[in-house]
């Protein structure tokens, strides 16, 4: 039997700005199983980020229920929510959000600092492992401003996976990257997925969605489509073809 890692029922989110109410999410029902690789698509303003923030325990819904890994999130006090973010969730932001003047290694170490009973040595070795997973072992002591956009996003992904989360959220992780770098990042996600991590990404680009198992489409705060992707592409393969084509050009 497959286990539902995420179970969302009748979830709504309404922003109030003076007299105007924005119904960013309207009665969302969604289940995601352990080990899935899901992409969320939709027009700008359709509520993708709003949903991701709620799923990532960064924000609270206006109404409805959300169960993550058998924990009812609505009932949880703030401090325990911080622990859940710290231990179960990895979150990758569109604009990286790395601490400036702080090395890649220290940025990745950050979540571990807020966890009790980890020695410095353990933290560093976990951070190094995470950076190795995203192929950034060569850049441990670089500062964010000494890294390319793709490299910065790799560091951000390493930070999101350093705590071995049960689920990884990524809100437009390739939104600020060129297509080749985007492919490399998607490749990183596919590799992580192979290791068994559940991943949910938001993307504008249909090509990116093609690399995921399931595509959920949003419009005006509602899910309008939820389909399995039957021909999942491999980012690795595409990258190989690209470099091949380049060689032939030369």
């Amino acid at each position, binding site marked *: 039997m497959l286990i539902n890692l995420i179970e969302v029922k009748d979830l709504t989110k309404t922003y109030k700005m003076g007299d105007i109410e924005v119904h960013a999410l309207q009665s969302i029902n969604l289940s995601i199983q352990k080990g899935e690789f899901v992409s969320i698509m939709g027009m700008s303003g359709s509520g993708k980020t709003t949903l991701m*923030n709620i799923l990532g325990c960064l*924000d609270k819904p206006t109404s409805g229920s959300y169960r993550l890994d058998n924990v009812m999130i609505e009932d949880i006090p703030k401090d325990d929510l*911080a622990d859940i973010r710290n231990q179960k969730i990895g*979150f990758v*932001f569109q604009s990286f959000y790395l601490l400036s*003047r*702080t090395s890649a290694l220290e940025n990745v170490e950050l979540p571990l*600092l807020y*966890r009790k009973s980890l020695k410095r040595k353990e933290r560093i070795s976990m951070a190094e492992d995470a950076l190795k997973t995203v192929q950034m072992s060569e850049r441990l002591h670089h500062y964010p401003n000494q890294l390319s956009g793709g490299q910065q996003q790799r560091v951000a992904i390493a930070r999101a996976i350093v705590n071995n989360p049960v689920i990884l959220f990524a809100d437009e992780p390739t939104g600020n990257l060129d297509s080749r770098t985007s492919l490399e990042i998607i490749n990183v996600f596919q590799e992580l997925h192979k290791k068994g991590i559940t991943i949910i990404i938001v993307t504008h680009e249909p090509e990116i969605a093609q690399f995921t198992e399931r595509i959920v489409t949003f419009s005006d705060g509602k899910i309008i489509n939820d389909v399995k992707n039957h021909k999942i592409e491999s980012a690795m393969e595409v990258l190989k073809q690209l470099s091949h084509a380049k060689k032939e050009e030369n």
Partner: protein
Amino acid sequence: MLLFEILTVALKSLVKNKVRTLLTMLGIIIGVGAVITMLAIGEGAKKLVEAEIATMGTNVITVSSNSNPRTAVRQESGTGNAIKLTDVESIKYQVQGVNYISPVVTTYGRLRAGSKNWRTMAYGVNSEYFFIRNYDVSDGQFFSSTQIQSGAKVMVLGKTVADYLFPDGGAVGQRITIRNVPVEIVGVLAEKGQSAVGGDLDDVVLIPYTTVLARLRGWREPQITINVSAISKDIIPIVKEEILQLLLLKNKTLTEDSFIVNSQTDLANMANNVSSTITLLLSSIAGISLIVGGIGIMNIMLVSVTERIKEIGLRMAVGAKKRDVLRQFIFEAIFLSGLGGIIGIVLGSVVAKVVGNMMNWSVVITTWSVLLSFSFSAIIGIFFGWYPARKAANLNLIDALRYE
């Protein structure tokens, strides 16, 4: 999160933002430094006055005739001299609480030793004068009561005078002349140095008063003042009053206005009032600079927290709790104000010393000025570190992350 980790995070963040760290500390450094300097100078002034008064002797009361022509009662002899030599004996035996008493008859004269000349004021005193003024001899001895009774031609010199007249030493036993009267030097006083206001305390010539009255009196009636040292500080007012009453009783034609009876405590009180005013003034300046420094800290802390709302949001997104964020900022503030406070204390002390050297003024750095300024800056630093951080930590996480 363990305290140690937060400490490390706080320290790292201070090191990473050197300019901000320095600017914040600057406010504290200037505030604390100013307080230390100002109070040290004020305290120094107080000590200076106390020292000046202490050089006068112990519990000294001076009795002199009031020569102010408007109030002085003219004596039948035509002089303004209300005090007579016999008053010394009367006071000595009839006023309780008198420890030592000496007449002081002042005369001007030129000392000559070989080819060397020294113009100075000489005091005709008795042997108790040495105890009233706390004098010590470094060489020879004071003159004795027999020498006083006989009007011996002897003299005790201050070090400055002795050194000038006899640069090679050996002043004691030498014969010199004062106003062409030959006298023998029987003692040289131990060095007292400079008075706090710069007068030379060693420019002194002492002669038995009998000798002055017999041999060295000028063309007019000698002015006699009386120096008394009371047994204790507390009874000074009583002794003063009794002396005055006795003098009035002895001479019914005189009034209270004929005498000036002054004590060291009168002077000390007056001087203390003045120096307290100075200290108060300096303290207000110091207080203002502390407040200005505090506003500086507040300003920079507010700006820096605003700048760092995104950082706070991110830390909370990856699992920091509100108290973790608060602790980090409070630690940062403690480091800032602690280090700034210490630098301020060191700097303030150095400046105070330099100023003291320049003005030839001994400054006194008191423990309480250090404690006061340090705790004030610590409170300001910590409050203004904590307050904006709390505001930021209370923000909605998403709003903090999105903050521009």
